[in-house]
């Protein structure tokens, strides 16, 4: 890929996003998952399915996130799978809330210190219509974990 800095537009397609889009992580099926859930956006047809294996310490031992749709959706799904690997299952909900807050388009400041992956996803707030692409994997996993815990 040509370096995005040459491009004039306010790039959301930076190297990190494009890397996760081209080489999505954690797409291998989990055998005997504890959680299986999928969701889609009826307006654009984007689809996400999540499967999770949980170990005896209540941590995520395996995660598979498959996203069908645009590059932003796929990159977000891949990044999420990396960030949530090994997390305690009960922490996923708090993680979701933090992430949702960081993606809130009404607080555009980037003051909070975040990982480069989250920072890359946050630039997408410049295109509010695309924030839903970022959020779909996260909403899917939140709902999955919520119903598992309840």
């Amino acid at each position, binding site marked *: *890929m*040509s370096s995005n800095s040459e*491009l004039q537009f306010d*790039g*959301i*397609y930076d190297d990190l996003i494009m890397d996760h889009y081209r080489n999505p992580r954690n797409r291998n099926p989990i055998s005997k998952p504890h959680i299986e859930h999928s969701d889609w956006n009826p307006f654009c047809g984007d689809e996400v399915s999540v499967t999770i294996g949980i170990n005896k310490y209540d941590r995520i031992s395996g995660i598979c996130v498959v996203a069908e749709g*645009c590059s*932003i959706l796929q990159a977000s799904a891949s990044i999420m799978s990396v960030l949530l690997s090994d997390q305690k299952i009960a922490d996923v909900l708090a993680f979701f809330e933090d992430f949702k807050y960081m993606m809130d388009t009404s607080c555009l400041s980037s003051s909070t210190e975040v990982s480069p992956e989250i920072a890359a996803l946050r630039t997408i707030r410049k295109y509010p219509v*695309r924030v839903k692409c970022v959020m779909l994997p996260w909403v899917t996993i939140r709902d999955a974990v919520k119903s598992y815990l309840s």
Partner: protein
Amino acid sequence: MTDGFKVNSIRKDFPILSQTVNGKPLVYLDNAATSQKPQCVIDSLSNYYQTVNSNVHRGVHTLSQLATDDYEAARSKIRSFINAGSDQEIIYTRGTTESINLVAYSFGVQNIRSGDEIIISGMEHHSNIVPWQLLCEQTGAVLRIIPITDSGELDINQYGALLSDKTKLVSVVHQSNALGTINSVKEITAMAHSLGAVVLVDGAQSAPHMKVDVQDIGCDFFAFSGHKLYGPTGIGVLYGKSEVLDNMVPYQSGGEMIKSVTFDKTIFNVLPHKFEAGTPDIAGAIGLGAAIDYVNDIGLDAINSYESELLAYGTAKLEQIASLRIIGTSSHKGAVLSFTLGDIHPHDIGTILDSEGIAIRTGHHCAQPVMERYGIPATARASMSFYNTKEEIDTLVTGIDRVLEVFS
């Protein structure tokens, strides 16, 4: 381009077109979603509110009479625009969607019975699918679908095979919003009529771009929207043959649509008022009249031939892009270019083009069955109008090159 088609001066009539978006001159190629409005339409709205505003068909005072005159004058303009037989065949609605719903709920519920069949096509907008699905659920009727060929045309032989004496209603799109295909609605109508079925034509995409003659088509109903025809949002039209409309029950009820009300009995008003309950979008109707005057001044033949040239130019340009696939390649189509670009998702195409000031539509265009037919989730769609230029198509092509660069 066509000698004599003064696109540069036409563009000056549309104030929005001189804007920049994201720091770039706006290239508006989303006309199938909605069209821009010329200054004369914008002026007609403010003029109405500044000088005439008043309710129609109610008062004896001067303003009410003026408002009624303007409102009814617009109806006459619409009648002549689509060559309907009389003004009373022109019913104001909110748009194509409401026009179709009116027919489904009034004509449909009254005339469709269990075991009857309704035929639509595989290239319908959701607004010409869902009302019929609901009607079928309600009545026990069966929905039949005319299939689409690879080039995006209706398979007329298959249509003939679907038609039978069970067919009570056929509802097809005149020009597809997703593919651009122009269907032979006159032939479709004649075939349906030979079996006694009633025909609705969805003219949302055709009325703005070609001369429509409802009597020549022969259809029983013709629906379109003001906002795609350079008019305001919130106003649309249902044309219906008066003998069909006369036998239909009102769709909504209240004021305006009655002749007399006692607690024993209500006598419905005459056409078209029988179908126009409540205070209508008066300003919208007058604005649509102004839009029709504007289009008539330029001339639909001139518009149509200029837009055909834009389509030919755009098609030739896009065909040169190796990974680009045009969806909808009928030889009979309007100025719509729906396409996919390798495996790049249309939303990504749309976002990058947007950053170049280019407005196109991405997604399923409210025509999911079309997407399914081609095995794709979505397309990017550039839809042109007579105020677009060859240079704008060049800008689109440069934008697509940019997309390819980002995703290379």
